[in-house]
């Protein structure tokens, strides 16, 4: 075979660099286009409500009154409930799979967990309606009310549908993500760290608690953020179980609404321009909320990750 000339090889380098640069620019361009489109589309609503759109607590398409506070509240609280349930559960799964499970069950169990992530969200929604919601109505809500009913979070009618159902279904949906990524993080912790702790006379659990988890904490935080991102943007399953009533209530038994699900719900029925524009602006708010959360998360990861970076001084 003829050896390619030096010049043609350099040319290939330039082409390759150009192509990858193009791919990266497409990415940036897409984000800009989406942001611009959202801003443009939300102009009528912004002209009418200004920043009151964010603080307004009434969302009433019939009277043309749009405030997105209940939607932001529903989005944040349902995701928070999801995290409260999913984070400890996922960490347990990850620790078991990475540290404790016998070798022969690790692979099949890990596969099952990841399979959970591949189930379409509408299927989760159906399962939510037929299994989860009745169970919440007849068992979970009465139980919570009985023992924790003195808290404002667990009062009111037992609908089954509502904030709690949304939070639980989101928790189930993000658990595979968080646990799969956390498992990878734990597996990447060097053996030398485990051995250092074991050699001091630590038990297995002490080794995990004092050496493995601290070493992997920035990675685990990253996994949690990945899960949070999914929870905030999830639409279909949430719409099917949350009850779709935009309101701010401390009780998780109450019906609620999220930004993503209201857009999916009302877009096809929004005939007047103001309603349409309000929905686009809600999308913009979601865009900004997600952006802010990601920035905060990044900063957190950097802060936490700073310690292990000193390792390069070996």
């Amino acid at each position, binding site marked *: 075979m003829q050896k390619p000339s030096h010049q043609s090889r350099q040319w290939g380098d330039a082409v390759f660099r150009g192509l990858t640069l193009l791919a990266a620019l497409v990415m940036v361009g897409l984000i800009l286009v989406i942001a611009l489109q959202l801003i443009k589309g939300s102009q009528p609503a912004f002209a009418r409500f200004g920043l009151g759109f964010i603080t307004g607590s009434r969302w009433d398409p019939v009277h043309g009154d749009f405030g997105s506070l209940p939607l932001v509240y529903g989005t944040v609280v349902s995701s928070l409930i999801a995290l409260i349930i999913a984070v400890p559960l996922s960490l347990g799964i990850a620790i078991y799979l990475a540290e404790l499970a016998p070798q022969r069950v690790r692979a099949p169990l890990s596969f099952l967990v990841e399979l959970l992530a591949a189930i379409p969200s509408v299927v989760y929604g159906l399962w939510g309606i037929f299994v989860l919601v009745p169970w919440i109505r007849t068992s979970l809500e009465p139980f919570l009310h009985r023992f924790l009913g003195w808290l404002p979070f667990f009062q009111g009618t037992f609908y089954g549908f509502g904030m709690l159902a949304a939070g639980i279904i989101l928790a189930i949906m993000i658990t595979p993500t968080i646990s799969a990524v956390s498992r990878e993080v734990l597996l990447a912790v060097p053996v030398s760290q485990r051995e250092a*702790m074991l050699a001091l006379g630590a038990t297995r659990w002490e080794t995990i608690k004092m050496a493995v988890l601290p070493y992997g904490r920035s990675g685990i935080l990253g996994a949690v953020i990945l899960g949070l991102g999914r929870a905030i943007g999830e639409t279909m399953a949430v719409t099917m179980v949350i009850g779709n009533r935009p309101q701010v209530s401390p009780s998780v038994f109450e019906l609620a609404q999220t930004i993503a699900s209201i857009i999916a719900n009302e877009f096809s029925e929004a005939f007047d321009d103001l309603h349409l524009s309000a929905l686009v602006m809600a999308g913009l708010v979601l865009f900004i909320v997600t952006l802010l959360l990601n920035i905060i998360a990044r900063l957190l990861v950097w802060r936490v990750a700073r*310690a292990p970076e000193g390792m390069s*001084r070996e």
Partner: protein
Amino acid sequence: MDTRLMAEDFSAWYGQNQVVKNVTLPVFANQITAIIGPSGCGKSTFIRCLNRMHEVIPGTRTRGRVLLDGENIYANRVDPVEIRRRVGMVFQKPNPFPTMSIFDNVAAGLRLHGLPPGTTAEEVVKRCLKMVGLWNEVKDRLRDSGVSLSGGQQQRLCIARALAVEPEILLMDEPCSALDPVSTMKIEELIKELKERYTIVIVTHSMHQAARVADYTAFFLNGQLIEFGPTSAIFTNPRDQRTEDYITGRFG
């Protein structure tokens, strides 16, 4: 002389692969015992069997007895966690906990086992850092991360960490193999000082290191103990031809 530790007809495996073969070896109190031999001779595996660290790797097994003050540490009801507290270990590469400060690295074992009565964590940490000669270098930066130190300092920190739980015996698995000559020299001096209070077993691939620090030397080859005796005898007057070939540099 007191025998602190005694391996009797001891064997160890990785899966089907036997890497330590029927080794019988005494470790004398307050002496430094070096284990030398070419790569893959089983010396690191053997030292890890002396505090039951070998078994934390899946698929490994052992046979035989190791007596710590006359009691078999492989007996059924013995808790390996307790053995590892009594028989401390320092590893090849310095492995401080990166998320802990210098202080917390040394105090890590205290968090596991509690403080000796009548002492404070500050006292123990200071004493251990002084013992390894690190106190003056780090006393103003105890809150800094343990990995902000140089490699040699990190290894001394790891030794201090091991000493903080007051082990009776200290195992060192090639503690200088990742260090520069100056750091190596400091660690060797430290090992000689520690001998006053501790019984030390050190694995090394450097014959010179063994000759410099050890009172007794054991030569391993292909998982077998070929020869054991006072260091001077091993190096000046080896009884086995293979020992002589190794120390004169004919292989390894």
